[in-house]
């Protein structure tokens, strides 16, 4: 539902990068690019992502963390407020039905519920939540079914005057009702929705919104939650807010959860240029940050005393798509040859490998390699794809009637193939990838024109590309894959179409048994992999940095973000 939308203008990006280079070159730490992706304090995160950096805490202290954007508003369910950074902050004051742990485990919220929410009736799908009696907002009002009803009514797309960031799941709900004084919530779905942990993610105190029985009342409540919250249902509450500089939170004395916060203050500083976060850390103006890594940043961290970092894989994955409706590219043999000649390991070596040694080619369109259902479908059904098989590619082309004439590929009619426009956003990693791909495709006589765009969505929507390079941001929930590969769906950018795939994905969207969902999506993946429309490259890592005086803070790259367990953070006990 959410995607990182961190952008910089070219000018400032160049400026920032160069400044970092200056910084890196002149710092005491020197430069290296052969270090590990985890420093000592976070070394356990490789094998124990949910429990690494655990330790006893002492009372008191404060932590100052940089986040990369100012907060547009505090209604994170609105299209205007739905930013990763907003959720990172609001996690401290909002209860969520489920947490996506760093390992990708989907965990029901044990502080909020008495027991695990269960599907009590298969058809119509009915899920029952039992809210803890002690779960209250900080004004002593119960967290209740009313809060779930408010979430449903404002996010289901019924009231077109509201601007929900997404309606998925909520639009399949038939009713939400409360019983036991609102402490039992019963949700009945119109159509099966296996990803139900994906909804009721950020709950708001409905009693603060006024009359919610009318559309006008809902709209007023929706707008009221744009303002700085004077309420909390989480371990902390907001004590001060400067919209240009920082937001400060203190302990919520009414917090009902098992783990009580020990930090006196949590401060998020809005350092909107990621390149300036490392100097701020070095000058002890912040205690940590969480960004997408690059080599300059990684080198700058080497040799810093008292600083821990981890570079972890997540659910965002880079891929190259072919526009299957663009002229000669509609020929599957040509697409296969293009994917065969691409050497993904060479791309990885040139881009993320220097700071993320664990990076390896991704073999699935539906699962990332840290997920349990992940299978290397590419190796199974199309072993040549993405492995730099030049000779195999030439064989495929020859078999399909193509000829290589003086270094230029020609089709059956003798017409030159290409040049193809490879569109991307021009970040350093993508520019490097583009350069590698140009060299590789040249080996089979296909010229490629490097085309940088500052309007990626525009290029995708208008199908104004032959090849395109970008990333999808996912999470452990799998219904979103339906929109990626089904015929005519908004995210199906390669315009791939196969009725069998449509059918398999449609089944997966209404299947309540997770294992069957995985099997159906892997079956669909085998078909779409053979069609050679989208080539997965690698999962993109995230960088999390804190000073070593804090315990229980770690990255969460699975969808709940690094603030998912803020109540457990603390200053390390001596």
């Amino acid at each position, binding site marked *: 539902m959410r995607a990182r939308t961190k952008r910089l203008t070219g000018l400032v990006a160049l400026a920032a990068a160069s400044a970092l280079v200056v910084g890196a070159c002149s710092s005491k730490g020197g430069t290296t690019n052969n270090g590990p992706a985890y420093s000592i304090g976070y070394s356990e995160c490789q094998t124990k992502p949910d429990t690494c950096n655990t330790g006893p805490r002492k009372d008191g202290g404060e932590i100052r963390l940089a986040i990369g954007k*100012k907060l547009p508003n505090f209604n994170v369910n609105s*299209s205007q407020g739905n930013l990763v950074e907003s959720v990172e902050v609001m996690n401290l004051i909002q209860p969520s039905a489920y947490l996506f742990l760093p390992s990708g485990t989907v965990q029901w919220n044990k502080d909020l519920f008495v027991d695990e929410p269960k599907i009590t009736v298969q058809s119509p799908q009915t899920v029952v939540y039992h809210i803890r009696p002690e779960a209250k907002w900080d004004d002593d009002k119960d967290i209740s079914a009313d809060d779930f009803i408010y979430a449903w009514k404002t996010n289901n797309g019924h009231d077109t005057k509201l601007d*929900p960031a*997404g309606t998925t799941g909520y639009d399949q709900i038939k009713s939400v009702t409360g019983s036991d004084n609102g402490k039992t919530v019963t949700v009945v779905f119109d159509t099966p929705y296996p990803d139900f942990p994906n909804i009721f993610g950020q709950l708001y105190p409905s009693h603060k919104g006024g009359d919610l029985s009318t559309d006008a009342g809902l709209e007023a409540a929706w707008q009221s939650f744009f303002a700085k919250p004077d309420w909390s249902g989480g371990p902390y509450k907001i004590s*001060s807010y400067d919209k240009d500089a920082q937001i400060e939170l203190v302990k919520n004395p009414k917090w009902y959860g098992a783990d009580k916060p020990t930090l006196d203050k949590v401060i998020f500083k809005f350092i909107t240029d990621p390149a300036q976060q490392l100097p701020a850390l070095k*000058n002890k103006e912040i205690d940590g940050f969480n960004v997408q890594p690059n080599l300059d940043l990684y080198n700058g961290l080497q040799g810093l005393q008292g600083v821990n970092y981890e570079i972890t894989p997540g659910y965002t994955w880079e891929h190259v798509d072919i526009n299957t409706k663009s002229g000669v590219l509609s020929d599957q043999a040509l697409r296969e040859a293009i994917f065969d000649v691409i050497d993904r390991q060479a791309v990885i070596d040139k881009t993320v490998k220097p700071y993320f040694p664990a990076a390896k080619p991704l073999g699935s369109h539906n699962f990332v390699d840290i997920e349990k259902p992940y299978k290397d479908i590419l190796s199974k059904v199309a072993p040549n794809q993405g492995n730099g098989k030049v000779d195999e590619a030439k064989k495929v082309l020859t078999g399909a009637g193509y000829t290589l004439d003086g270094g230029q590929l020609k089709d059956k009619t003798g017409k030159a193939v290409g040049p193809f426009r490879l569109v991307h956003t021009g970040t350093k990693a993508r520019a490097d990838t583009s350069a590698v791909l140009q060299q590789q495709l040249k080996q089979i006589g296909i010229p490629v024109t490097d085309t940088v765009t500052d309007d990626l969505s*525009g290029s995708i929507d208008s199908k104004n590309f032959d090849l395109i390079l970008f990333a999808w941001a996912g999470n452990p929930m799998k219904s979103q894959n339906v929109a990626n590969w089904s015929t005519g769906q908004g995210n199906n950018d390669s315009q791939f179409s196969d009725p069998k795939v449509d059918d398999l994905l449609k089944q997966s969207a209404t299947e309540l048994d997770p294992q069957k969902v995985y099997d159906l999506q892997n079956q669909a993946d085998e078909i779409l992999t053979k069609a050679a429309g989208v080539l997965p490259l690698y999962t993109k890592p995230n960088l999390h940095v804190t000073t070593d005086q804090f315990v229980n803070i770690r990255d969460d790259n699975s969808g709940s973000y690094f603030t998912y367990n803020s109540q457990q953070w603390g200053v390390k006990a001596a």
Partner: protein
Amino acid sequence: MFAYTVRRLITGIPILLASSFISFWLASISADPVRAKFEGRSPPPPASTIAAEHHRMRMDEGYFKQYWDWLWGLLRHGDFGPSAVSSNISIGQGVGHASLVTLRLVSCAMIIALVLAVVTGVVSAYRQYSKLDYTLTFVGFLFLAMPTFWIAGLLKEWAINFNDAVEPSLGSRPLKVTFASSNPLPPGFFAKVGDYAGHLVLPTISLALITYAAWSRFQRASMLEVLNSDYIRLARAKGLAPRRVMIRHALRTALIPMTTVSALTIATIIGGAVVTETVFQWRGMGAFLVEAINAGDRYAMLAWMLVAGAFVIIGNIVADLLYAVLDPRIRYE
């Protein structure tokens, strides 16, 4: 002079209007704030949300209607239009706050740059082709060749090392590398002043050095021209003290071209502040513009253009008025 000032201010209005119209047109064709906001979201937001956002940003109206609504709203209610970031954000308040922050930075940098430029320019001219002149010329060209972000990056690294060195003895780190002040400010007047100064030093130096470098070259050239003129030779021949010749006769005249140059470079300095503010995370006009561009926020870009344009127009009027102070022959009716 008052009537002249009013006339100049009035003639600035159509200039601002024309530039706002062009800016609005350029921003409209180059950026789609709704697309920029929803880019990469998976699954994409519902069609009703996208339509509502288009309506809120007035993008369902024709271009001229959008511009007229903006202009009319601005003139009648002081409304700068809807923010593309969020409906609860006021562009007017944002640009007002940002302009004050930038004024603090730019005015400090300009004063330092002017003093440095005049002193080094005069000394260089007076000691033409001496070792001192060559040294100052070298330093001037060195800073002239350095991009703002590079100087800023170097200064940051230097400040971090400086703080590391003095922290054990002072118990604090006096130089700050992000933001315009601490939040909250420390208690006590001197502590507050110290906090502001600690945040101001690095960005001011980085902006001032770039500006000084160019201005010192102008000042040197202007001073050399004046020093070789007949009336200076006459003043010397009359037996006036060298100091009086330099300051009263030569410098006063040599400052006239500098006044023009400094007024014209206000726009450049504000441009330089974009990078400086980004590097030091000041929430001034530079950061305001970068955020507006990133969000494709056409109304915020317009607000920036209006305020920056007003700065430039006022700066030029001040320069015109200074001519009269520096040159007794100039009188405005």
